[in-house]
């Protein structure tokens, strides 16, 4: 029994431990070359974005293609705040960082509430296009701003934070993000959110306040996207609206999907790997070979998604995956024979499966309906 509790704890907190140790490591032997520092900043930003989007896509089950829009709001507002604050607080003051982060995050959170309202009425792909539209509208507003307010077409000039400490702060913020998002998900509120994902009507019938939880999920997600945006403005000299197009939202979505839906640790790993590869590819493939970057990215994306999701490859995947290889290396036990499911706590069955299970269970209620939707209804 005690053994089991320990196991749960470890798998929950492994991300904190790894990042915490990394932080300790940075504090004493931090890299001094700037390409590594820049990359670490980017990785931290990607992790925050992926974790926050994972809350909406993985746990609430709504497709959002406008995450970069929230980031855009955070980057511009937080960047503007830091421009104003730096004169009184100093460019590299921690208070400047904290206050700007709060400003950017809170304004983005307000946008999250605004975009959460249509989310109450719309579903699936309709919501996806509305979030995409939101992102493009935000971008267009900042692009057409006057030069004195948000810099217009050339973008907002922001002070770049001291590069020797920014990446450390960035990872501290990653830890805070993880702490808040993980705790939210594991609280009763988080369970309510996953219940909405698995079946909204069933969730409502058990007394869950759908409106409240959808809005809360969107708001938290937008808040951290805004935080990531502020970090972006601190790690660059200019904030340009072109950065935050729908392609960026898609990139974040790719991180979440490749990491495994509703799997925070997976999102962290895939955000790290994708950002790392992206940076490395762009420095290795230069000059005439630059075009290969996109080609490789596209091919890898298609192959990984097919490998991870194709129903035909299911048995192959179960035989050769990281967990099995890992267990082979460290012990002879196969994880599928283990009784506990605690290690897989985050990995919940997909929506479709849940729907089918429920529709079989509650068959009598369906008799009066006109058109059956799923094979299971018959």
């Amino acid at each position, binding site marked *: 029994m005690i053994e089991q509790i320990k196991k749960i704890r470890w798998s929950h907190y492994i991300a904190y431990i790894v990042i915490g140790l990394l932080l300790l490591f940075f504090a004493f032997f931090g890299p001094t070359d700037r390409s590594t520092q820049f990359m670490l900043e980017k990785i931290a930003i990607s992790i925050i974005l992926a974790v926050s989007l994972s809350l909406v896509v993985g746990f609430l089950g709504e*497709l959002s293609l406008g995450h970069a829009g929230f980031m855009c709001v955070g980057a511009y507002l937080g960047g503007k705040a830091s421009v104003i604050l730096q004169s009184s607080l100093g460019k590299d003051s921690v208070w400047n960082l904290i206050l700007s982060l709060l400003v950017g995050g809170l304004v983005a959170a307000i946008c999250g509430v605004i975009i959460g309202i*249509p989310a109450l*009425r*719309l*579903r699936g*792909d*309709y919501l*996806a*296009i509305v979030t*995409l*539209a*939101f992102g*493009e*509208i935000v971008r*267009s*507003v900042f*692009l*057409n701003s006057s030069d004195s307010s948000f810099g217009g077409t050339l973008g907002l000039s922001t002070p770049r934070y001291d590069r020797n400490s920014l990446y450390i702060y960035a990872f501290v913020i990653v830890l805070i993000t993880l702490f808040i998002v993980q705790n939210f998900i594991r609280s009763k509120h988080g369970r309510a959110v996953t219940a909405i994902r698995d*079946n*909204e*009507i069933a969730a409502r*019938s058990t007394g869950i306040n759908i409106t409240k939880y959808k809005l809360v999920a969107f708001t938290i997600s937008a808040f951290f996207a805004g935080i990531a945006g502020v970090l972006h403005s601190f790690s660059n000299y200019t904030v340009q609206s072109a950065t935050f197009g*729908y392609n960026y939202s*898609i990139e974040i*979505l*790719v991180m979440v*999907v*490749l990491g495994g*839906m509703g799997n925070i640790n997976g999102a962290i790993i895939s955000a790290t790997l994708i950002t790392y590869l992206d940076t490395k590819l762009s420095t290795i493939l230069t000059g005439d070979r630059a*075009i290969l970057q*996109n*080609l490789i990215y*596209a*091919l890898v*994306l*298609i192959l990984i*998604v*097919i490998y*991870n*999701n*194709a*129903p*035909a*490859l299911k048995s192959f995947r179960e035989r050769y995956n990281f967990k099995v290889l890992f267990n082979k290396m460290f012990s002879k036990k196969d994880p599928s024979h283990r009784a506990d499911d605690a290690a897989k706590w985050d990995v919940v069955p*997909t*929506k*479709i499966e849940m729907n089918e299970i*429920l*529709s079989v269970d*509650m068959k009598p*209620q*369906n008799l009066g*309906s*006109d*058109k*059956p*939707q*799923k*094979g299971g*209804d018959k």
Partner: protein
Amino acid sequence: MNISNLLDCSVMSGGGASFGDKLADIGRELITIIINGLSVGGIYAMIALGYTMVYGIAKMLNFAHGDIIMVGAYAIYVVMLISNPIVAILCSIVVCILMGVLIEKVAYKPLRGASPLAVLITAIGVSYLLQSLAQIIFGSDPKFVVVYDFGAINILGVRIQVFTLVTLAVTVVVMVALTLFVKMTRIGRAMIAVSEDKGAAQLMGINVNNIITVTFAIGSSLAAVAGLFYLLKAPTVSNTLGAMPGIKAFTAAVIGGIGSIPGAMLGGLLLGFVECIAAKITVIAPYTDAIEFSILIIILLVRPTGFLGKKRREKV
């Protein structure tokens, strides 16, 4: 509002131009806007039809649809180097169909039954793949190709580009043909069956895989026609040709109600009008995209499944 302004103007200008003349001017202006709107909207509608077909049957957002347009336009460019426009158009349709079917077989079919999000990501991957392949093959500079110059005609003092009428006519014909095809033919009815319930359709002896392949073939041939329209309007093709039209047509399809064929037409034309009116007003011209997307949001808030989208009852 407009007319009272107009009266003021004519009074102030000392009656230089008569009221009737001014009215005729306004009328001509309106007709021009309508014609331009129809011309832009017709292309959007054509792309949106493809989106809607694929979405209705395969239940997936084919993000690579816009890039099929680019493939079609490049195909026309290549064939035009050695042959005449008719051959080029036919070749482009064939190439697009082959490309669409190939993409479906290689990238989407293995994922049938997997989560819709996985299919969406693959579609995005395919889109990136097509764009970078096009740049590798054709280079980064836009290619210029004049397919055919229809010229222009004057109607009631309004200049109308003939291809605008051609675009519109073809789009309407295609829309009607598609509707009839889906309603009347065996394959069409099988499509409806597949879109309603894949499992049940299969039990009824419909080969679901074949039906989806046919859908992709039709969608891709529509993309080829859209590519042709683009070339008629602006004789240039580059590897990012289809990116923004793809998104706009997706918006149009959603406004009309995804899955509805007349809806796609309606959404496309509406977007076309909005775009043309916005471009005419200097102050709001830079915000054209934002306005279009705002209209989308407002429409969806009022009608969550678009103008003609089917409301599906949610079942437990």
